[in-house]
């Protein structure tokens, strides 16, 4: 059995593209293609990447909101992928999700009270009176007032709706929460409120978060460890400070150097990549980053290897995993790309 709180092993999710007169699958979108990582209890793992890299699909596939095409997810001694419907349903008591769009993820015809109560009803927890009490305490916990329970979602602002979504996720006291871009639809001042709330709830309830987001600054702020995805694969996982201070994979280096910094006096050395992320339908062979990779393209023998062999995720020491054939060579090309000045912790 795995020693970690949750262990995901070569998880896959392929979506078929139907075509032809018989509507047979003519191609596959390999949204998640062999993703492996683990979660430690009580930590926050950030999952970052650009649009289409498969980070949201990974989050949903772990909860089996999407059926995995392969791989395993070990959680509390069971492999979630092999559970049947009833077993999965009871397992879901331990895992909940917070969605990106607080406008689309709350039923407009239900009052806030019944939205938050619903998970308790589904899992038949408590009597009506107890559930009612629980709802009120949840509202207070996320910073809403008791009288809000009788109102409808449209009466709330975006930030308040996200609080409702968080209260709903907390209702059945889960151990793991998958948060899919929970703050990216919110304005800056509201975003900070929600981030602080999520951190406080984690401390109080000993929650484990899988935090999926594209905003690298937000992810670094909230995460203990960070995994970077590119075209359905994880290219690097490390402790978040280490990853941001000394990224090893050429893609991570470029990604981090592209983040704008709100200080006109800091001019980071910026690696500007050429072109766009290729389509996951026709992902490049071997290392998927090789067509855009400055390290692979510097040398024909390297390019040949990167084109044919998919690099495995290797531990460089201290749980800093990266999937690149040429880490020392990358150090040479980029220099040690420190995003942060040494001395700044």
């Amino acid at each position, binding site marked *: 059995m795995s020693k970690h709180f949750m262990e995901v092993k070569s998880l896959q999710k392929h979506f078929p593209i139907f075509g032809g007169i018989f509507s047979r699958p003519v191609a596959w979108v390999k949204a998640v293609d062999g993703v492996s990582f683990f979660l430690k209890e009580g930590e926050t793992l950030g999952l970052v990447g*650009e649009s289409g890299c498969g980070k949201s699909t990974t989050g949903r596939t772990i909860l089996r909101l999407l059926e995995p095409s392969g791989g395993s997810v070990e959680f509390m001694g069971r492999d979630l992928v092999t559970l049947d419907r009833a077993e999965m349903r009871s397992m879901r008591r331990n895992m909940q999700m917070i969605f990106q769009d607080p406008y689309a993820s709350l039923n407009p015809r239900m009052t806030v009270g019944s939205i938050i109560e619903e998970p308790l009803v589904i899992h038949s927890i408590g009597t009506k009176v107890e559930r009612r009490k629980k709802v009120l305490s949840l509202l207070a916990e996320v910073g809403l007032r008791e009288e809000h329970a009788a109102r409808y979602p449209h009466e709330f602002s975006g930030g308040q709706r996200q609080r409702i979504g968080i209260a709903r996720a907390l209702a059945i006291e889960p151990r793991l929460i998958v948060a899919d871009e929970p703050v990216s639809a919110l304005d800056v001042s509201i975003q900070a409120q929600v981030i602080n709330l999520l951190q406080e709830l984690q401390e109080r309830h000993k929650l484990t978060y899988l935090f999926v987001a594209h905003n690298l600054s937000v992810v670094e702020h909230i995460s203990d460890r960070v995994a970077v995805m590119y075209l359905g694969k994880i290219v690097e996982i490390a402790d978040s400070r280490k990853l941001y201070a000394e990224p090893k994979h050429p893609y991570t280096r470029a990604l981090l150097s592209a983040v704008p910094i709100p200080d006109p006096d800091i001019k980071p050395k910026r690696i500007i990549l050429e072109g766009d992320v290729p389509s996951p339908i026709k992902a490049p062979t071997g290392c998927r980053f090789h067509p855009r990779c400055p390290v692979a393209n510097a040398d024909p023998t390297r390019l040949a290897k990167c084109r044919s062999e998919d690099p495995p995720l290797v531990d460089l020491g201290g749980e800093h995993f990266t999937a690149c054939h040429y880490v020392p060579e990358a150090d040479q090309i980029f220099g040690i790309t420190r995003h942060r000045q040494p001395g700044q912790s």
Partner: protein
Amino acid sequence: MATKDELWKPEKSPTPPPGTLPGGAHIVDEASPALRTVPGEPMLEVKGLCTYFFGEEGVGKAVDDVTFTVRKREVLGIVGESGCGKSVTSLSIMRLIPNPPGRITGGEILFEGKNLLALSEEEMRKVRGNKISMIFQEPMTSLNPVFTIGDQITEGIRLHMKLGKSQARERAVEMMELVGIPAPRDRLDDYPHQFSGGMRQRIMIAMALACDPTLIIADEPTTALDVTIQAQILELMKSLQARLGTSIILITHDLAVVAEMAHRVNVMYAGRVVEEADVRTIYKTPKHPYTIGLLCAIPRVDKPEGKLCVISGTVPSPFHFPKGCRFGNRCPMKFDKCEAEEPPLFPIKGEPGHAARCWLYEPDKQDPTTEKEVRRKMLEAGERV
């Protein structure tokens, strides 16, 4: 001295410029090359602009008495959250406010000596897309999906520059080359959906530049893009701006993007400019509690430690602004005067060009410790969530 035509030619060099890496990527070390053009004399003056929306709920004062100046070769950043009036300001300059329900009810917009608000619709059409052009946030919705991009780029060129079809196409190719679209001649007859998001935004920029405008209004030009593509587009805008000397009004909610691009910054809140200063001053010594709160509410990759500041509450609706200072109900520093009367923009002593709309900075009361106090209270609010 290069002639204007030479300036327009894309820089082609047989050897790749320094910093170019294999695979086409390149390293930009921004410490050295000066993006910074030096701004010249004023070219656009917005004075007391009021744009109101008239609805069932009453009057929504989306933009209320906004005054600012854009100088030649200057990048002015307008920052604020949703509903602060930054986009309505830009649409007002272009006179693109849908009427009804909206109407520009007061003020002047002086552009190269003419008041745009006094022009007839026909005269205005000669300004739009010609002297002043706009880059929108979502390149997919602002490009017409049923016309080729060649048609769309040449439309403005033929109209404003009075060029024939083939000349206009030449100009379009030149523009596409300028913004870095590979094989532009072959792509001229492609439709918008055949381009990626980043390429579409490049096309928008090519369209905006096509008629040699003196002012470009860029409304959230990189918000819809991924971070590596955003870096490409910002790079492109910076180098074009430095080369062509166009003035830019950059409208965005992203304080980091503004820090990279702008010379001066206006912070807007609830239809008003609440603080204005040059870019360094805004980030180093912000004065208005709203600006201070915003700056310490964003997590930063370069300084990850610490709790985030919280600005409690939400932005008020433009139909129901609070009495007195519009930020009053969210401000940790609020005192009696804030509720009674709205503060004007007070100039900050010793910092020319810096002004804040806050009673804390009345000329005889300015105190350098105020800023620290505001930050402390905002952080306290963060502790309480």
